[in-house]
């Protein structure tokens, strides 16, 4: 895969998903650029999860077109899965394995060689300040550290894009900021970060954000651009205006 720095890493055109007579995602179109931190916002039930499941190759769309990391979501969902990282709110870590064992497991899943796993693991543990807890069981770690580790397992295979689904729920305000540092660093190295969050202040940290309402993308732009367009003080106000048609 050869992607130059201006290219889109995600291209979505009129992507739609229908369940029975309910249209969960309704002809959404957008692009995400390489190395960008892209915030994917929306109220509960707006269709974010369905959209993310299509972009990560887990759900075949009803119609439209989408390419992720150069692969078509209809024809090559398995190639997409190999080239992206995914971290869910629930952290898919094994509580009874150590920090190192979890990394080794995910490295193996992504097909890394034993040598690469050792090398990448050392590098990640060093960079994320987890070297001191390499051999501790996951269940003994505080939430903030689990979160950093869950992030590490999502990027161990150096994916082009990492999808983060509400990665900072429930963590303390200092840890939450450390996690955003990690995202900045990751984007700085060229990995695209696609993130959902309910913390509206975090939306301000993104390069661009989109806001989904009832299956559609009703707004897309830089936080500053959206504030200006909607005459709002912050993205929170933009969100409230869109999600409830101006009431509140």
């Amino acid at each position, binding site marked *: 895969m050869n992607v130059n720095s201006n290219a889109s890493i995600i291209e979505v055109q009129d992507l739609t998903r229908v369940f029975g007579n309910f249209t969960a995602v309704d002809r959404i179109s957008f692009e995400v650029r390489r190395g960008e931190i892209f915030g994917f916002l929306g109220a509960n039930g707006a269709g974010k999860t369905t959209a993310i499941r299509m972009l990560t190759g887990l759900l075949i769309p009803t119609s439209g077109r989408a390419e992720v990391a150069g692969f078509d979501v209809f024809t090559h969902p398995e190639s997409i899965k190999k080239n992206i990282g995914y971290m869910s709110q629930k952290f898919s870590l094994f509580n009874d394995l150590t920090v190192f064992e979890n990394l080794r497991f995910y490295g193996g899943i992504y097909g890394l060689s034993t040598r690469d796993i050792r090398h990448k693991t050392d590098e990640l543990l060093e960079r994320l300040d987890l070297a001191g807890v390499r051999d501790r069981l996951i269940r003994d*770690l*505080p939430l903030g550290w689990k979160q950093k580790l869950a992030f590490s397992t999502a990027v161990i295979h150096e994916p082009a894009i990492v999808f983060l689904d509400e990665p900072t729920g429930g963590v303390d*305000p200092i840890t939450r900021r450390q996690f955003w540092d990690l995202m900045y660093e990751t984007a700085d190295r060229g990995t695209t970060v696609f993130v959902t969050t309910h913390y509206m202040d975090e939306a301000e940290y993104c390069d661009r954000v989109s806001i989904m309402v009832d299956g559609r993308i009703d707004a897309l732009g830089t936080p500053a651009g959206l504030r200006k367009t909607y005459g709002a003080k912050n993205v929170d106000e933009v969100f409230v205006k869109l999600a409830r048609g101006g009431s509140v």
Partner: protein
Amino acid sequence: MSVTVKNIVKNHGDIRALRGITFEVTEGELFGLIGPDGAGKTTLFHILTTLLLPDEGDAHVLGIDVIAGFRNLRRRIGYMPGRFSLYPDLSVEENLSFFATIFNTTVEENYHLIQDIYHQIEPFRKRRAGDLSGGMKQKLALSCALIHKPDILFLDEPTTGVDAVSRREFWDMLGRLRVSGLTILVSTPYMDEASRCDRVALMDRGEILSVNTPAGISREFGRPLYSVTSGRRYELLKALRACTHAHSVFTFGDEVHYTDLREDFRPEMLESYLQQLGFDDVRIEQITPGVEDTLISLMSTQDTRDPIGDDNHGHKEGTNDGYNPAIKDS
């Protein structure tokens, strides 16, 4: 006093969930317990709602001892747990009448208490509770917690995982309940919700760091706080952290909140430092600290402690390790 808590200690095995909690809540107050996961909020609620025995200390709710008087107390409290705990296979109205029945009352008798909230989900009263959206589940759970006319309401993280708009609506509902004179204790990990409370307790790792009004919490910050902005946000953050006079540097949305170690600090000093580094669009202004600023500051002064809370492990990594700078000692 509606709630009196003295030196409550609770350990879960090795984990010191509550390390000596003391506070009071007056009648009719909307009182917030604010803190991240692991602060001890749920454990505290379990003790106050008579579901869990403390290891040490004592607690009274509505003047009743939570241990000796648990039977009486259970009739008089409303409790909405953090996890959705209604019957998913029962319909909306079946859930509501179930909870009314076990408290020997009827939906009709106390309908006026829940009308404001329940009418929003009434069109779906035949739907299975398990099929409701997140926001509707939350409204049903609140209705079920209120239907027996409790004298005090405990809400454990009612807004976690709920979108920003539904969160606002929920707090609007709580505001209206508060006007009716009901005492409400509510826990949340969202700092911005503190401003909706009469008073809040900031909690972290089993301790209360401060109890105050939202405005009082801001005054506890104790240093001049500056907001710094630039179009080059990440570079700005790194430059501020590299400044030898920086006391604290934290991102807040598109701003960086900054405090300085120097007694004679003026914003122009920082401006010229940043200009030398090539920032030509910097804006610096002094601002009033918020609850989140104060919590971060209080947490940072505590971070020499073992993060797991088990001092026998001998690990001394604070959660701020490698974070440059979190807050420097001054």
